[in-house]
């Protein structure tokens, strides 16, 4: 931050007018705060607040998550329902993977949000 530069008029003749201008324009009282600072602080948005664009993205991400959960649930159901007798290895792996994804997406914890 720089210190103020003092380069006001260098004309020496304007002393009286300068004095009067200063007195008139600078001399009057500053308005009292009267709650102004509080109003300003109330009008500030919090730093790091979520922007509308971020909110839009989050909404789409939530929808995509629900679609993925539903797809995994349908997949698991279809897999288990269409199998007669004991599951063979590929089906069992697919079912476990789908159930795993289902749990991962639907459990609301930190690790499921990335």
């Amino acid at each position, binding site marked *: 931050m720089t210190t103020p530069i003092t*380069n006001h008029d260098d004309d020496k003749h304007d002393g009286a007018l300068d004095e009067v*201008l200063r007195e008139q*324009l600078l001399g009057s009282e500053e308005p009292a705060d009267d709650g102004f600072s509080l109003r300003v602080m109330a009008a500030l948005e919090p730093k790091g607040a979520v922007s509308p664009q971020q909110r839009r993205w989050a909404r789409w991400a939530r929808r995509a998550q629900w679609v993925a959960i539903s797809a995994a649930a349908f997949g698991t159901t279809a897999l288990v329902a269409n199998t007669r007798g004991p599951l063979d290895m590929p089906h069992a792996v697919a079912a476990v993977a789908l159930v795993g994804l289902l749990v991962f997406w639907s459990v609301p914890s930190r690790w499921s949000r990335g």
Partner: protein
Amino acid sequence: MTSGVPAAPAEAVVQEERLVARAAAGDRTAFAALVQAHQGYLRKLLGRVCRGDQGRADDLAQEAFVRAWRALPKFRGESRFRTWLTRLAYSALSAERPALPLVDDAPPELGADSDFAPGADWRIDLDRAMAGLSEAQRHALLLCYGADLSHAEAAQVLGWPLGTVKTQVLRAKAKLREQLQAWENTP
């Protein structure tokens, strides 16, 4: 003007720099301290800019502080915080009235002598005389005398070249002197 901008004590400058840095990092308490320190100055200046309409001046001042809060992380400290804040207030003013402030191209009226001696009613006379100035001249005077900014700082605030600010101040003072002398000589 023979006297310059009064230099703020070094300690106060350092303290303000600390507050600005903390506020830029999101510290609301630090920003509240900055608001309290500068609100009086800014509202008074804007009150004059808005020709006494203090309600509008307060709205503009509030807008300037809100803009400052948003833009503080980008503030590099190349000018005083007060100058930067005044610039933000003028940006808010320009957004409201894009035509302001204009630089007028009228030829300088520098013919008046400088034997101005204020009479008893000089306050009223000066107010009347200032009402006759162009917008550009009024803004230049208000910033250089009413906000105690240097010409360079006023140029920054208005977005004008330094020479333009100096010319506008000279023209304004010549016009004021002429006007005041004319009234003084009127029987």
